[in-house]
C-alpha cells in the first residue's frame, strides 16, 4: 500500500512540471479524437514505444549510471516470444507478454551477473557484444525463422483484443498508452524506492555506496532486470503492431543506440527525460524524413538537420534537454 502511495506521489516536483504533465496526459488521452493524419498516429505510437523503452533504459542507464547499449536484445526476446507463441501455439498476446518479460528478465540475470563486474566503457561494450551475439543466434535459429524472421498471420476477425490485431491504429495507441502510464507510475515509485536511492548513490560514488553496506553488484542486477522487463513488454507489443519481425529490425545495434540516445538527449536520470527525448527525436526523425527524404536535391537534408540538433544539444548541455531546463531554473533562483 505504501508502495502504491509512493508510486502516485509526485509532490517533490515543481507545480509547473505537474501542470505540463497533466496537460500532456490529457492531450495523449484525447489525441485520437483530434483531427490527425495516420502518419501522426504512427508517430505518436512510436513516441510512446520509445518513451517506454527510454523509461526502462533510464532505470539502469540514468539512475544507475551504467551506459547500456544492448537493450535491443530484450526487444527481440519480447517480440519473438509473442510472435512464436502466436504463430506456433495460437496463444494470445496477453499470455505471451508476461512470458516474454519473464524470459527477458531471466536472460538479464544470466548475463547481468558477469556484466556488472565490468565498469564504464567496458560495461557498455560488453552490453553491445551480448546483444549482437544473441542477434546472431536468432539469425541462425530456424525454429524462429532465422534471419528471415517471422510474420504473424492476420486473424479473420478484427479487432481482436486477445491477439492485439486491429485494423485501426487507435486501438494500438491506447494499448501502448496504457503501457506508458503504467511505466511512468512504476518509474515514479522506482526513483523514490530503496533500490532507486541505492542506484543513485552507486552512480555518485560506488566505493562510498559499498562502504555504506549497499550491495552494488546485486542492486545493478536488479535494476537491469527492471529495465529489461520494460523493454521486453514493448518488444511484445512491437511484434503485434508490426506483424513482421526479423532480427535486423528488432535486435539491431541501431535500435539499442536509439533507445539510449533518446533517454540521454532528454535527460538521463530524470523521470521526464526519456519522454522528452522521444517527443523530440521520434517526430523529428519521421517528419523530417517524410518532408525532405524523397525530394530531389534535398535527399539527406533530414539526416543532416537531425544529427546537427543532436550534436548541438550534446555540446551545449551534455545532461540533455532536462539539464537545460534545470540550468535555467537554477539561474532564475540564484
Amino acid at each position: 500500500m505504501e508502495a502504491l502511495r509512493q508510486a502516485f506521489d509526485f509532490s517533490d516536483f515543481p507545480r509547473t512540471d505537474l501542470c505540463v504533465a497533466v496537460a500532456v496526459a490529457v492531450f495523449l488521452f484525447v489525441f485520437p479524437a483530434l483531427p490527425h493524419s495516420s502518419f501522426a498516429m504512427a508517430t505518436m505510437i512510436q513516441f510512446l514505444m520509445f518513451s517506454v523503452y527510454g523509461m526502462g533504459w533510464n532505470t539502469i542507464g540514468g539512475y544507475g549510471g551504467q551506459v547500456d547499449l544492448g537493450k535491443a536484445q530484450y526487444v527481440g526476446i519480447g517480440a519473438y516470444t509473442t510472435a512464436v507463441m502466436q504463430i506456433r501455439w495460437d496463444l494470445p498476446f496477453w499470455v505471451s507478454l508476461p512470458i516474454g518479460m519473464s524470459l527477458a528478465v531471466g536472460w538479464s540475470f544470466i548475463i547481468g551477473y558477469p556484466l556488472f563486474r565490468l565498469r564504464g566503457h567496458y560495461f557498455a561494450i560488453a552490453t553491445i557484444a551480448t546483444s549482437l551475439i544473441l542477434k546472431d543466434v536468432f539469425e541462425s535459429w530456424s525454429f524462429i525463422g532465422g534471419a528471415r524472421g517471422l510474420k504473424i498471420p492476420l486473424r479473420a476477425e478484427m479487432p481482436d483484443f486477445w491477439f492485439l490485431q486491429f485494423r485501426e491504429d487507435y486501438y494500438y495507441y491506447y494499448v501502448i498508452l496504457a503501457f506508458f502510464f503504467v511505466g511512468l507510475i512504476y518509474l515514479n515509485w522506482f526513483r523514490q524506492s530503496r533500490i532507486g536511492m541505492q542506484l543513485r548513490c552507486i552512480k555518485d560514488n560506488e566505493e562510498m555506496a559499498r562502504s555504506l553496506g549497499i550491495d552494488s553488484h546485486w542492486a545493478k542486477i536488479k535494476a537491469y532486470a527492471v529495465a529489461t522487463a520494460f523493454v521486453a513488454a514493448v518488444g511484445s507489443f512491437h511484434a503485434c503492431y508490426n506483424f513482421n519481425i526479423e532480427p535486423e529490425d528488432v535486435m539491431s545495434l541501431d535500435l539499442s543506440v536509439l533507445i539510449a540516445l533518446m533517454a540521454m538527449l532528454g535527460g538521463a536520470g530524470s523521470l521526464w527525460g526519456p519522454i522528452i527525448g522521444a517527443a523530440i527525436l521520434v517526430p523529428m526523425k519521421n517528419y523530417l524524413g517524410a518532408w525532405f527524404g524523397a525530394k530531389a536535391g534535398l535527399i539527406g537534408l533530414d539526416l543532416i538537420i537531425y544529427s546537427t540538433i543532436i550534436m548541438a544539444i550534446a555540446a551545449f548541455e551534455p545532461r540533455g534537454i532536462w539539464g537545460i531546463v534545470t540550468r535555467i531554473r537554477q539561474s532564475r533562483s540564484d
Partner: protein
Amino acid sequence: MARGYLMAALAVFAAFSLCTNAIAVDEIKIGVLYPLTGGAAAEGKELRDGAELAVEIANNVKTELDMAMAKNSGIKSLGGAKIKLIIQDHQGNPQLGADLAKKLIQDDKVVGLMGAYHSAVTKTVAAVAERYGVPMINESSTSPALTKEGLKWFWRTTPHDGTFTNDLFLFLQGLTQGKVRGVKPFDKKELLPIVSACEKTEWGSNVDAAIKEIGKPSGLEPQISLLYAAKAPDLSSEGQSLLSVKPATMLFAGYGADAILMIKTLKSLKAKPKLIWGQNAGFESPEFVSALGEDTEGILTRTVFSPRVGEVKKVSAQVNNLYKTKTGRDLSGASARAFTATQAWVHILEKAGSTKPQDLQKAANEVKIDADELIVPWQGIKFTTTGPDLGQNVLGTGMIGQYQKGKDGKMILEIVYPFELATADMIFPIKGW
C-alpha cells in the same frame, strides 16, 4: 510560466497532426516507397528515376514510342486522368516503411502502392496494404516468400530469386557444357569449390537458402555459405573465411555498400576465383562500377536489363535514350524494373477504368501485357491468381550479365545468359587480384 510551458508542449504535440490532404479529381495518386538514403540510396534513386520516366510517358503523348501507354495523355478510361507519384524514403527501415505506407494510404489517399526494393521493407508494406485492402505492385523485391503468403493485394512484376537462382545453376551447367559464347566445355570440378556470402535480411537469407537448395541436385552446392550484416563496416573475416577453401566460384547477394566492400575485401586478400556472381542489387548499381572501376571486369551479375537489350528490342533502345537524356545514365536493372512496374500500374488503371480498390484488384488479376510493350526482355506480364505463388508475374525471365571493358574503356554489362541473347564472349576464368 506554467502557461508558457503548457503552450510550448501543446505546440510540439499539435505539430503531429498537421497533415491534411485534398484529393484532386483529375489525378491518380500512387504511393511509392524507395530507399533514397542509406546504403541502398543509389538503387533507390535509380528506381525513382525509372518510375518517374514511365509516368512522364503515360501522362503525355509520345508517338515515337512503340508502347500503348505512350499513345494517350493520361489514363484514357479515366477521362485522361494524370498519374502522380508520391514518393517517400523508407531508408531501408521496415518500421518506417510500414508507417509511410499508412500515411500514403490514409493521409495522401493514394489508390495504390509501389515499392519497396528491400524485401524486408516490402514485407511490412505489403502487410499494411493487405490490412487496408489497397493494391500494391512490387517491382524489385525478389524474396520468393513475398508471393507465398497468399496476399490478395500484392502483385510482383519482377521474377523472384527462385527463378534467378535457377537461372544461375542452368548457366553454370551450360558453362561446363560449352553453351556459353566464347568458352569451351570443361569438367564441372573446375567450378569447385563454390562458396557463397549473402547479406542476412529477408532477401539475402532467402537467396542463401535458394542457392543451397537449387545447387544441391547438380552437385554445385556451396562448400561454405555465410550470412553477413549489410551494414558491417568490415568484411575481412568473412572474406578470409570464404577464401580458406581456395574457391573457384564465389556467389554473393549484397545490397549496395556491402557489395562494394566485399569486392574491395577480396581484392585486398588477393583472391583468385575463376568466377564471381552477384545476385543483382548492389552488384548492378551504378556505384558498383564507379567505385570499383576495372576491378569489376569479369564479375557476373544477374539482371533483368542491360542497355544491350536495345539491340534486340527497339522499344528498350527508345526508352533508354529518353532515360539517358533525362538522367545522363543508361537504364539499369533497377530503373528498368521500376519503369515496368509503373507501366503495369498504367495498364491496370486503364483496364479497371476505376480507382476503387476492388476494381483495381480484379484488373490486376486479369491484366495481360504483351512482351512487345515491355523494355525488359520478358515474355510479358501476367500475374498468377491461384497456387502457392499468388500474385507473381509468371512471364518474367532473368539474364546474367558480365562486366567487360567497352571500346571507350568504360565498363559495360554484356549479356552472357540466356545463351541465345549473348552479346559478347564470356571472360572465363577471370583474372582475379
